[in-house]
């Protein structure tokens, strides 16, 4: 019956083929081993699956994707891709095509999906602030200008994440503030504002349990910490003066705090202007050590089991990736995957890590136990890699 339908409806069949269907046959499939890779210069994403290292589709027409990031719908079918040019694109992984797309600002940096999956928030540079959209229709629900005090000047917004309690948390780069937006009424968000958190907070992230929000500071040595279980206690400074008064080294690419690398109550963050990974004991938020690494760290990410940290670097050391063993705090492997390693993403249980090697137009897949390269996929100027396992994680 179904076969007859296919043959009798040539148009329908062609439209299926044209949509570059993930599964060429009509059998349904899950999305748990899927992901996207951003092709930053071409303005496209590749839909891939990690079980067999295959490319399923290429989706084009997403605009300027330099510094693009993505979050997933709670059913892990749709990726919401945040482009540099203010584009917000909802990509259907199963159909391998754009479901909806809007351009919501002139210049954007990232976004988040709410705890209940109904809202998408985007952090913007130009004009600054946060906009909130319905995740199904991309209808605008709220516009948060994010000016400091009575200032009309909109601040560039960084470090936007979701948090339990229907909240979004974000940081104002220019104003040096952290804001918590209560989204129970999406059209009228209630704002809790924390001024003077430190100089030039460049990014922020939330612990995997959603309790602590932390902003990295560029303009001074330290981090700003907010306990979201007890926001009334305010923002406090931790790891103050970790540079010990030494002149910072030049930073040729801003570090990221997109992921909170954490294991056994120990957290790991990139130092700014030091070739070090900082180790923080979360019980008292004091420094518990530091690991000297090959350059200015950009991403410090923990394998899902917490046993390894993978670190990549700013130029001129961006051909290198180092692996730190969290038990000994020793570097156990230094890899040279190729020129310009921009991003790393673990499979959900961490047996593989996928690396973007931008200048060699490749994404490489490494085994995290043997450190051997298992596969390599041709990708045009790859940057961010985002797997659907993010759909189930707070802050991602």
């Amino acid at each position, binding site marked *: 019956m179904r076969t007859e339908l296919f043959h009798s409806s040539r148009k329908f069949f062609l439209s299926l083929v044209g949509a570059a269907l993930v599964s060429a046959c009509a059998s349904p499939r899950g999305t748990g081993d899927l992901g996207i890779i951003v092709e930053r210069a071409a303005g496209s994403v590749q839909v891939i699956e990690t079980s067999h290292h295959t490319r399923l589709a290429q989706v084009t027409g997403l605009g*300027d994707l330099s510094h693009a990031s993505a979050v997933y719908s709670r059913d892990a079918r749709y990726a919401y891709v945040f482009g*540099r040019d203010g584009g917000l694109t909802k990509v259907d992984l199963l159909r391998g095509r754009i479901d909806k797309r809007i351009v919501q600002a002139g210049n954007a940096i990232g976004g988040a999906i709410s705890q209940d999956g109904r809202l998408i928030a985007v952090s913007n540079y130009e004009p600054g602030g946060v906009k909130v959209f319905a995740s199904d229709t991309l209808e605008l629900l709220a516009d948060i200008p994010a000016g400091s005090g009575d200032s009309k000047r909109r601040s560039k917004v960084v470090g936007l994440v979701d948090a339990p309690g229907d909240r979004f948390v974000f940081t104002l780069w220019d104003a040096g503030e952290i804001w918590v937006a209560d989204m129970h009424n999406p059209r009228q968000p209630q704002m809790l504002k924390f001024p003077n958190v430190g100089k030039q907070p460049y990014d922020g992230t939330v612990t995997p349990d959603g309790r602590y929000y932390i902003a990295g500071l560029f*303009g001074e040595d330290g981090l700003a910490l907010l306990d979201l279980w007890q926001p009334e206690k305010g923002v406090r400074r931790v790891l103050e003066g970790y540079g010990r008064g030494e002149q910072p080294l030049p930073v040729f690419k*801003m570090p990221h705090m997109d992921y909170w690398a954490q294991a056994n109550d120990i957290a790991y963050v990139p130092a700014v202007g030091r070739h070090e990974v900082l180790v923080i004991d979360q019980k008292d938020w004091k420094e518990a050590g530091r690991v000297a690494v090959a350059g200015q760290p950009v991403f410090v990410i923990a394998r899902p089991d917490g046993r390894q940290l993978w670190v990549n670097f700013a*130029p001129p050391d961006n051909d290198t990736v180092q692996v730190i063993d969290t038990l000994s705090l020793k570097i156990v492997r230094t890899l040279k995957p190729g020129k310009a390693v921009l991003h790393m993403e673990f499979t959900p249980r961490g047996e593989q890590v996928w690396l973007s090697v931008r200048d060699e137009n490749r994404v490489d897949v490494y085994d995290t136990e043997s450190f051997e390269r298992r596969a390599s996929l041709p990708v045009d100027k790859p940057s961010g890699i985002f797997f659907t396992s993010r759909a189930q994680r707070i802050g991602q």
Partner: protein
Amino acid sequence: MRRPRHKTGIILAALGALWTCAVCADIPAARKAELMHLLDQDCGSCHGLTRKGGLGPALTREALAGKPAVMLREVILHGRPGTPMPPWNSFVNEQEADWLAQILLEGKTDAH
């Protein structure tokens, strides 16, 4: 021919953007391609792949209109203290910074 001195550059700029990069012709084509790559990718990580800005300001021709080339060269080479703009003099020399400044002021997107 020698590269114009700092003061000469300021005077030239002040005289109405008559600045020309006297020795840029000496940069080999392959190196120019590398410099364009640096501009697009590494400068681009803060200023945008299309130079429309990001955490750093826009570097489009319009945004830079009226800015002296010598100032751009100095910022490229020595950074801007108090901001995240680092000194790039370990990646490019003065002549190359002059060439990059010219590329930016002219809004060119390729090395030719």
